[in-house]
């Protein structure tokens, strides 16, 4: 059931969530961009702020509308809170050289996280990571080994409360509609908020879980009317029509699978700096490096996990050399993985259409343009 509430109730919701013992994280303005950070009160949210995004361009603007969620994909994603950029896997020590190892865990998960302002694309990205890390609550296909799951991710994910928000407007680098991940949010949330500013400032809230139901019971509102629900449909339709980008995904994985020898990769490589910005901004990227080291006494060893990127040279190290030496081969790995081989590996696309890699690429390489160009090539030749 949908509840219609006044926007002012949102502050109360934040309070209820925090009182329930959650560490609340959500969008907030920092250094001229929307970052994801701790939300203590309503004024931490980017009220009246919207963004402009284009190839290699990101800018915030104030707008007349008092909306709290009137921006598109934030500069940061929620990824870092479920899979931190750096985390200690273990400490191992031995008292004598060659003696027995004593192991101790390096990272604790003791807080319950709540995310607010999770956009459709970012919610889909969490679903993608659930599959990658063996934590999919409803596996589509049997896992190779159901016991293999990323424990630290799983512990954070297990207690996670998700308050998703539907977009009332898409950005010019957005293409979630093409990727079938938005703008409508259908599942995977505890609460779903749709915000409206039409003379009045109000919200529709839906619960998608028992925790969501409980939270909802604390809010004063009235059941949504047919009209309210129609208003939501219209809003989503407007959002769908305002998508700045699109990508034709019909046969895309198959076509890209045939594109590995295309000369287009060399052409992209002339522009690509191999800077890894795209992978760092992407909400579905998951590659990590493992680093083993000892302290100065040599008796304590530490294993650290860090975000890695297919644009880094060490990632493909084999027998004293790199497999992917050229920028062309690295960009090819990035794009074909997102849009083609992800399907083989995990049963879905690895791209949720958030557009961040387009916005944050310093030279303005656009994944939708490149994919379209590459597949136009294969079609012509096949």
């Amino acid at each position, binding site marked *: 059931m949908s509840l219609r509430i006044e926007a002012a109730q949102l502050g109360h919701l934040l309070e209820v969530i925090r009182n329930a013992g959650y560490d609340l994280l959500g969008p907030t303005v920092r250094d001229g961009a929307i970052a994801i950070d701790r939300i203590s009160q309503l004024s931490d949210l980017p009220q009246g702020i919207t963004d402009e995004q284009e190839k290699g361009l990101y800018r915030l603007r104030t707008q007349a509308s008092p909306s709290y969620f009137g921006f598109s994909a934030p500069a940061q994603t929620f990824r870092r809170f479920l899979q931190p950029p750096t985390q200690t896997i273990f400490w191992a020590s031995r008292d004598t050289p060659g003696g*027995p190892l004593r192991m101790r865990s390096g990272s604790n998960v003791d807080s319950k996280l709540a995310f607010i302002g999770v956009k459709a694309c970012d919610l889909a990205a969490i679903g993608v990571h659930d599959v990658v890390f063996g934590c999919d609550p409803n596996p589509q296909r049997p896992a190779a080994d159901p016991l*293999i799951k990323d*424990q630290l991710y799983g512990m954070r994910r297990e207690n996670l409360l998700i308050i998703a928000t539907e977009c009332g407007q898409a950005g010019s680098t957005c293409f979630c509609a093409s990727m079938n991940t938005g703008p409508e949010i259908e599942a995977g949330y505890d609460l779903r908020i749709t915000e409206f500013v039409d003379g009045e400032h109000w919200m529709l809230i839906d619960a998608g879980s028992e925790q969501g139901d409980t939270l909802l019971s604390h809010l004063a509102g009235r059941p949504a009317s047919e009209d309210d629900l129609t208003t939501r449909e219209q809003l989503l339709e407007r959002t769908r029509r305002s998508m700045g980008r699109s990508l034709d995904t019909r046969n895309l994985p198959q076509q890209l699978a045939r594109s590995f020898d295309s000369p287009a990769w060399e052409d992209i490589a002339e522009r690509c700096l191999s800077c890894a910005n795209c992978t760092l901004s992407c909400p579905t990227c998951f590659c990590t490096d493992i680093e083993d080291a000892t302290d100065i006494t*040599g008796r304590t060893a530490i294993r650290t996990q860090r975000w890695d990127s297919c644009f880094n040279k060490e*990632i493909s190290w084999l027998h004293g050399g790199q497999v992917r030496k050229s920028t062309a081969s690295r960009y090819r*790995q990035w794009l074909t993985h997102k849009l083609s081989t992800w399907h083989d*590996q995990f049963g879905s696309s690895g791209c949720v259409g958030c557009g961040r890699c387009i916005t944050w690429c310093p030279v303005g390489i656009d994944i939708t343009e490149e994919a379209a160009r590459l597949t136009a090539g294969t079609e012509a030749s096949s």
Partner: protein
Amino acid sequence: MTGRDSVDGLWAPQALRIANKVQESTDVFSFELELEQSFDIRPGQFNMLYAFGKGEVPISMSAGPPTTTRLVHTIRNVGKITTDICAREPGEEIELRGPFGNTWPLESALGGDVVIVAGGIGLAPMRPVIQALLANLEQYRRISVVCGARSPYELIFREDVEEWSARRDLDFHATVDIAPRGWTGTVGVVTSVIEQLSFEPQRTTVMTCGPEIMMRFTADAFCDRGVPAESIFLSMERNMKCAVGFCGHCMYGPHIICRDGPVFRYSRLRDLLHIREL
């Protein structure tokens, strides 16, 4: 795994005592590790061997069939991690976690001809297969083994090789690129030996492990002789960090080698092996 403070079992190595160490060639060593409890590892699978504070390397099991008391790994000393491990002596320990990956198709090969082609240290992951085949000879038809190395000095498992070449129930060939005086085996690349093997193509399973280029030529040679690509199996190698499909290091086009492999049918690799820098 209890409590929230415990180390994720996926990452925690266990220590095994070295019972025996064998020098196989100038820079290759085999370690026999004592097992206190059963360790269910099968031919084709690998463990991540840990050098304290230095890192891990994926190493296949190199002898079998698995017994409850010994686990054997054969390692080439090529970098700082393997140098650390290769320097260890009996009585000391090796820490490892595993097993990971899939297995050689010993079962689907039942009843047919089997050909094993190993190049260099690629013989290490193949030895448990050869041992398993020899232990169940009556369940297979003709069994052939081709073992290539740059020179006889790089041929590992000398004792086994001698024993295998003396057997009448095994069609065994050792071939080297460069032969010193006194070498009685074949000289030349493995593919030249493949031309002389006898097998019934439609009923043959091929398993090969070695440098990528060698495996590719080997697979093509068998395809040319009529063996279906689905019946040819290759063991792939890429950089590995997690061994469970989480870190993205071992991606090979549509495959995640640690999770989906390391053993793949040639039909799943043929279109990929010619792609450069994949």
